[in-house]
């Protein structure tokens, strides 16, 4: 196995931008069709009334909020991989950072759409923005939904810039490698980048500051998403563990999303030399740690409820543990804990295939987790007379599927216009130039830095 260097890197990574096969258009059309279907579903919900969904009294939140929490959770991939690994200067992060940052940005865009889809009068959603209106009415800063608004906007701005800044030198690479209209477009995007030592230093300082700033913001974002639940006096919602529990779950599902995206990119864009088994193994180990952490939080949450034995809590507890939600609950436990432990804990299974299977399990399991936090609690809130249940309707299922298609669509388009692996960071990682490195075993090279 050889490590690509210098011009080879540029050629390999700019190639997907220049060569487009018919398969690309077919897939764009396919995903695009799903997105259009989702849009139609949403518009019909706005036009005919919110009653098209399966929301009812007393389960006022359902699929939409599940998706909201799920996608905001997926968006935590970029922060962990990119920001933390950047700060600790882990060499193996280099081919992975941009894939992860792109997931963050797109997942956030999708997640931030869900409050709009979910609210009853989406045409008035701008009332969440603090602007001086003629009626002198401002948003209520004591509402967790307004915290959400601020946290998600800060995180989205930060992640977008965090993604864009290291793209500037790569736009310059594409600018120099293309001709005609493409060159003109990338010339604008490259913002006059040349590559003087001053520019490199400023860029690296900016990336460091951004990495430091974005980690607490990411933690705050999912903590605040958890506050949406823990601030309401609902059985099994009002608990202090929700903050860290949600953050851990978010990073957990984020890594899973990243592994799946990397496996697809590796196959479709022929990046076998860049996204190596090592990266999957390292991410797999991180995911294993998060699986254990997730199990730890769930155990804590359940044990404290069980031991407290409050009647309202126990109604919800048994609903998920043994009664109507039990099949989903135990599927979640298998997907989120048993499966990752086996596939990622045993070295023989920790291959690319193993990691991808575990990741699919975690994505499904984490989606179920959010559903199981929301619906059983709302359906069994205090007065038994007002207990109820929830079945999703077509419009909700369509929109949910459409957002997964939207993620694929955005990601494919992104990989078509931007080198999906940061060229300059990859090159910077090969110092000193490979010719000077003494002969070493493959394993040693992989472990040290090189890529």
């Amino acid at each position, binding site marked *: 196995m050889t490590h690509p260097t210098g011009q080879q890197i540029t050629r390999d990574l700019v190639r997907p931008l220049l060569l487009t096969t018919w398969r690309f258009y077919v897939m764009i059309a396919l995903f695009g069709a799903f997105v259009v279907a989702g849009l139609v579903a949403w518009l019909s919900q706005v036009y005919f009334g919110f009653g098209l969904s399966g929301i009812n009294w007393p389960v006022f939140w359902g699929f939409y909020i599940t998706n909201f929490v799920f996608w905001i959770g997926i968006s935590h991939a970029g922060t962990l991989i990119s920001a933390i690994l950047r700060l600790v200067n882990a060499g193996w992060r280099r081919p992975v950072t941009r894939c992860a940052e792109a997931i963050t940005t797109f997942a956030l865009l999708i997640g931030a759409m869900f409050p709009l889809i979910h609210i009853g009068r989406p045409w008035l959603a701008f009332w969440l923005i603090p602007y001086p209106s003629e009626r002198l009415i401002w948003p209520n800063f004591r509402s967790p939904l307004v915290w959400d608004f601020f946290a998600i906007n*800060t995180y989205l701005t930060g992640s977008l810039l965090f993604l864009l800044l290291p793209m500037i030198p790569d736009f310059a690479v594409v600018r120099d490698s293309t001709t005609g209209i493409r060159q003109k477009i990338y010339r604008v995007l490259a913002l006059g980048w040349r590559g003087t030592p001053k520019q490199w230093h400023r860029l690296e300082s900016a990336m460091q500051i951004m990495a430091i700033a974005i980690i607490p913001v990411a933690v705050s974002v999912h903590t605040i998403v958890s506050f949406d639940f823990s601030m309401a006096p609902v059985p099994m919602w009002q608990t202090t563990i929700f903050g860290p529990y949600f953050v851990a779950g978010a990073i957990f599902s984020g890594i899973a999303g990243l592994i799946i995206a990397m496996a697809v990119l590796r196959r479709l864009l022929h990046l076998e030399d860049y996204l190596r088994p090592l990266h999957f193994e390292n991410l797999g180990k991180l995911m294993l740690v998060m699986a254990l952490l997730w199990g730890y939080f769930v155990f804590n949450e359940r044990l404290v409820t069980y031991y407290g034995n409050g009647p309202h809590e126990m109604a919800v507890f048994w609903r998920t543990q043994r009664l109507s939600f039990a099949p989903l609950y135990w599927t979640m436990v298998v997907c989120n804990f048993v499966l990752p432990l086996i596939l990622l804990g045993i070295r023989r299974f920790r291959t690319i295939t193993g990691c991808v299977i575990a990741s699919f399990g975690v994505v499904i399991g984490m989606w179920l987790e959010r559903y199981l936090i929301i619906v059983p609690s709302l359906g069994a809130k205090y007065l038994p007379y007002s207990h109820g249940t929830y079945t999703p309707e077509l419009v909700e299922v369509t929109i949910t599927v459409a957002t997964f298609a939207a993620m694929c669509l955005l990601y494919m388009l992104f990989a078509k216009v931007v080198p999906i692996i940061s060229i300059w960071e990859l090159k910077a990682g090969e110092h000193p130039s490979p010719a000077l490195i003494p002969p070493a075993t493959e394993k040693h090279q992989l472990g040290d830095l090189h890529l």
Partner: protein
Amino acid sequence: MKAVYGLYTDGASAQQAVNRLRAAGVVDADITIISGQPMEDQEFGHRDKATWMWWLACLGGLIGMSVGFGLAWITEMSWPMNVGGLPTFAWWPNLIIIFELTMLGSILATVATLVVSALLPGKGGALYDPAVTVEGKILVGVENPSDDAVPELERSLGAPAGALVKMQ
């Protein structure tokens, strides 16, 4: 614009060229270096390292914090609303708003500093060769040299092995 520059395949020869230009009496500010990646392992890669960016990021954070506090204080106090018995200006919830705007302030200040200090075109800044990105070369050159100095510069730039000297 007129410029003399050399293209080098590796950092060591580029460093040699920089050293020879200095020996020929060119001051650092007049030497343009362009590379396709950060060159941390060469001396010239450490030029222009000093930056106010960290302090400006802190300043941006302070501004963001004040905006967050001001926004929450002014809007809540100008029309007090009683919700659930919370104080009109409730510190714990409002700290979240203040925190988010602090972070937003420092992020925006960082990016603004980057754009102003490194991306906006300054003096000179026109010397460039696509070989830097396409072929992975390192460019060392002098912009707008006086005509008498050109032969001397070409000699200095051409000295390292594998150098390719060009005029623009």
